[in-house]
């Protein structure tokens, strides 16, 4: 594995607004990295810096070890799938896919072979003569993808590529896109605000917030060990509680929440917060187990005030002391015994489920 893309201290300012704020990151060859964040977090600007449609206010961008910061978009070995697909309406599927090869000046027989292979790759055989308006959303998506990968770029950029598709098709395309990306070993950067899509497709996720990369890691790492309240809430759902560190030991960390609950977290890390520190803790809703009886540690009592049926599971909101609400996602099989509105239950969890966030 080697670094295919390197961003070194890249910033982009529009007037007084800093859209991308000193971002440094490395994408390995063949890796799919996702820039995840809400709208306005700078992920789209970062993508445009990579494609070359914006140039950074400071910092540099390297592709395959070569500085491309000042290289025009048409000279960059990077192709993009646009959110709108941006298929040329006056060209057929075939001509759309061949566009990049023609611009590069490939020989006609070579274009023929490559386009044919690309059409087969995205299963669009028989559609070659159609125009964009004669295709379904999913088919357009495939054309846009084929058009971007047929010139075999070093880097593929995907800008919210599935956002225009309906939920079922989107999940199918996630799997297919990922399969293709693996098969071709394409270094890919995906921009999305959809956390499920990010988790399903990425090798690593960069969670972006206010122009910065807030946390970078594999989906499992980021989901299970969010470092900030923003990450904990943006990637999945989280119960956030303010707490004070009472004692730390090899056995665990004693915490006292603002509501007065005494909780035990996992043993303190080396550079973890000292005794007396004010911290925020995050507990994932699915880690809370409902029980009739309190456990020795980590049990919070609450009254069920809200219940949402989600199919395989149920989402419950319990209200504890001082009106503090906790969200619980429980397997739906237990619905008969529990979960009636107004009932009181204990939310129990393991010390390992308590994640201390950075302030």
């Amino acid at each position, binding site marked *: 594995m080697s670094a295919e893309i390197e961003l070194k201290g890249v910033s982009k300012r529009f007037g007084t607004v800093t859209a991308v704020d000193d971002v440094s990151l490395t994408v390995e060859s063949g890796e799919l990295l996702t820039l995840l964040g809400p709208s306005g977090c700078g992920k789209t600007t970062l993508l445009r810096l990579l*494609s070359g449609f914006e140039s950074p206010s400071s910092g540099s961008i390297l592709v395959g070890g070569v500085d491309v910061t000042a290289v*025009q978009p*048409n000279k960059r070995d990077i192709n993009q799938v646009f959110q709108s697909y*941006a298929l040329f309406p*006056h060209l057929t599927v075939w001509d759309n896919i061949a566009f990049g090869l023609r*611009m590069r000046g490939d020989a006609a027989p070579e274009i023929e072979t490559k386009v044919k292979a690309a059409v087969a790759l995205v299963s669009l055989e028989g559609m070659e003569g159609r125009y964009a308006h004669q295709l379904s959303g999913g088919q357009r998506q495939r054309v846009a993808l084929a058009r971007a990968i047929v010139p075999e770029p070093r880097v593929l950029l995907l800008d919210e590529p599935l956002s225009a598709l309906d939920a079922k098709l989107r999940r199918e395309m996630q799997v297919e896109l990922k399969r293709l990306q693996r098969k071709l070993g394409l270094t890919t950067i995906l921009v999305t605000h959809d956390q499920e899509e990010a988790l399903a497709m990425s090798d690593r996720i960069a969670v972006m917030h206010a122009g910065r990369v807030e946390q970078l890691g594999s989906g499992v790492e980021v989901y299970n060990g969010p470092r900030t309240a923003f990450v904990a809430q943006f990637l999945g759902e989280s119960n956030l509680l303010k707490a004070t560190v009472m004692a730390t030991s090899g056995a665990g960390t004693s915490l006292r929440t603002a509501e007065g609950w005494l909780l035990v977290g996992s043993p303190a890390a080396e550079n973890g917060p000292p005794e007396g520190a004010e911290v925020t803790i995050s507990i994932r809703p699915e880690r809370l187990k409902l029980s009739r009886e309190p456990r020795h540690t980590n049990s919070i009592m609450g009254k069920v005030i809200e219940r949402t049926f989600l199919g395989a599971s149920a989402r419950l909101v319990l209200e504890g002391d001082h009106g503090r609400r906790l969200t619980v996602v429980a397997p739906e099989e237990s619905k008969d015994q529990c979960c009636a509105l107004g009932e009181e239950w204990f939310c129990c969890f393991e010390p390992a489920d308590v994640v201390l966030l950075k302030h």
Partner: protein
Amino acid sequence: MAPMLVWLVLFAVLPLGILGIYSFCQRDDIGRVVFAFSWESYGRVFDPRYLHILVRSLGYASLTTLLCLVLGYPAAYYIARRPERLRQRLLLLVMVPFWTSFLIRTYAWIQILKGHGLFNTVLQSLHILAAPVDWLYTPTAVMIGLVYSFLPFMMLPIFASAEKLDGDLLEAARDLGAGPVRVFSSVAIPLTRSGIAAGIILVFVPAIGMFAVTDLLGGAQVPLIGNVIQNQFLQARNWPFGAALGVVFTLLFAISYGLLQRTPKWERT
């Protein structure tokens, strides 16, 4: 539907019908229209004398259209791709000439092009010309006048189609390796085709029939078919012949319009 039909009948079908009827009539010695069927006027349309003027008119109109397209396309395209506020202001500048009568603006060109006019003064002070050149009453003056008059009619429809052009498509072409020239030729131009076609019709058709510019700036030295038609109605008092010329042109326009307005394959469903 019905109001539209009334409008069409009143302002299109009826006048054209009258023109058609006159074109098959005859005239008596003092220029009155005699309602007796005759092909005579149509015979005269193909008289070499008029055919010559017709060919010249087509040439002038074609050159006017070409120059308007070459000058107008980049300007209209540029304006259409500016940010909203600037775009509106620039567009207003294109429209400003319409606030003054077309005839007065053509008279103004006489002042600019005459022997000691603005054009010569500027060229002389820049030492491009040693002595004043008589621009007025030359084919050059007519071309300048025609291009000046029709440029906005080329720019407005092109502006309208360039404004609708999706910026993502231009970026996609760029992303796929097209340089600025290729982006323009393989994406921007085909996708603003309808604006170009409308501009060509809006310039070419009236340019053929234009008589005021050729009269004022050409000094009747280079009569175009518009001058001939005007003459037949106002001076020669040969209405049937004027009408026959008019009918032939209307048919020519209709055919060229039909050819230019064909919907491209990619817009058909």
